[in-house]
């Protein structure tokens, strides 16, 4: 039985090619700008230890007490902590959800299948529905697909 693959609209090859070229060109210009419009390798990839008209060796504290920067970094610290806690909560929620979903699946003992063809299983699959799983309605068996090849693992 052959598969019927869906009709989908993909991105056109022309759009991909043109946009990729434009992206590379923009990147080149941006990096060229970042390296001070240098055109010889001698000046690329090097952070100058000094800037014209001073800066280095200037009063250390002058650059160390800019309120805007101080606030910016305090703000990012706070964002890190809050987002980190949020991400941790989401992690635990998903961990729990995965465990609950796993309890509804057939428990190990049959070969896993990674195949979508719905051929009837010859020997009738053993459904070991976990008793602890919350009732999600009895599942209609559509002649559950059995891939005799397995996934080779």
């Amino acid at each position, binding site marked *: 039985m052959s598969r*019927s693959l869906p009709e989908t609209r993909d991105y056109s090859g022309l759009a991909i090619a043109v946009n990729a070229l434009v992206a590379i060109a*923009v990147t080149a210009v941006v990096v060229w700008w970042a390296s001070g419009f240098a055109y010889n390798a001698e000046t690329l990839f090097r952070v100058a230890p000094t800037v014209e008209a001073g800066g280095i060796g200037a009063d250390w504290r002058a*650059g160390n007490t800019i309120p805007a920067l*101080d606030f910016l970094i305090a703000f990012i*610290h706070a964002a890190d902590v809050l987002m980190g806690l949020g991400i941790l909560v989401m992690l635990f929620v998903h961990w*729990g959800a995965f465990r609950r979903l796993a309890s509804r699946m057939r428990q190990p003992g049959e070969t896993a299948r990674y195949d*979508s063809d719905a051929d009837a299983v010859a020997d009738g699959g053993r459904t070991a529905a976990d008793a602890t799983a*919350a009732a999600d309605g009895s599942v209609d068996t559509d002649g*559950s697909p059995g891939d005799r090849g397995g996934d080779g693992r």
Partner: protein
Amino acid sequence: MTNLDHGKFTRMTTTFHTLLALDVFILFFSGYGLMFNDELWWLVTLMGGSTGVTAVHRIAGLALVALIVFWVLMMLTTSTGRGNFREILMGPDDVAAAIQDFKFVLGMADERHPNARQFAGYKSDDVPLLSYIGKGVIYIFSIELTLLTISGLLIWSKTGVMQYFATKTAAMAFVVFHGLLGVIMLMGVMFHIFEHGFHPAFYPVEVKAFIPRKLIPEEHADTDHDSTGISQLTLAPSWGWATNVMGVLTVIGIVSVLVGSIFDEGYPVPRELVVGGGPTDLLLTVGINVGILVLFIGMALQMYGNLLRVRWQKQLEQEARATATTDGGQVNQPNDD
């Protein structure tokens, strides 16, 4: 029903996802090798010391700029791209999905909300292109990558930061800002790896992001089902312990880089021109290294996802050939290998 579930990504998007993932992993390894140099000294050494690690970081950053510009252009200049904008807007359904996820874990709901479902199964028609988490990922990545690119280029440019703040200490503040900014994404990516690697129906990796949607069949034997049909799938024997181990590693990784980021204050610049100076105690060192291990596992899983795509394409080709030769007779399922 299938481990493939339902296709979402175009071929371009799957390729982009892989390139972005690899690039971001390299940026994380090099960037946090620098920021957490106390704890990840070996990573710095591995990349050729402080000179090598900055070079690697900049080359990867250069690739990131190209990828971002390309993506923005694809979203703006193509009708397929523009059609996706409606899909990423957060709505009341997403809030409901988040709340229902909490209820589901606590046993107060029987199913995950359609906007939270990763495994759609028979209910694929009810599931949007992006789950509420997926939308969150896109928001965080968009904001983070924009700010990281701008601050990164300002740091890279000799005069970029200096024209605003004429001292090196202030320039250092930008480096610190850049590093602290990436921490959100670093933690987010660790969660992303867990979320898409350890869903029981998809373990060890969800292939939606690796197999283009045009290669994923949509048919089901019949469509009248009152559940997703997850109970017809078999759980992998190793899922239980692997998920617990990975869950623990991910929690340790997230907590450690969070604690590490708090200690790596960096501005006002204390004594030396080094971002770092946190407590170099053993626990934090182990923890941050666990975080890096989680990223390595993620990198391996996304390579495995691509391997599955290659296998699947081969299987489709074999089936097409078999169908052509047998006049539409029964096709023997080929082994994946």
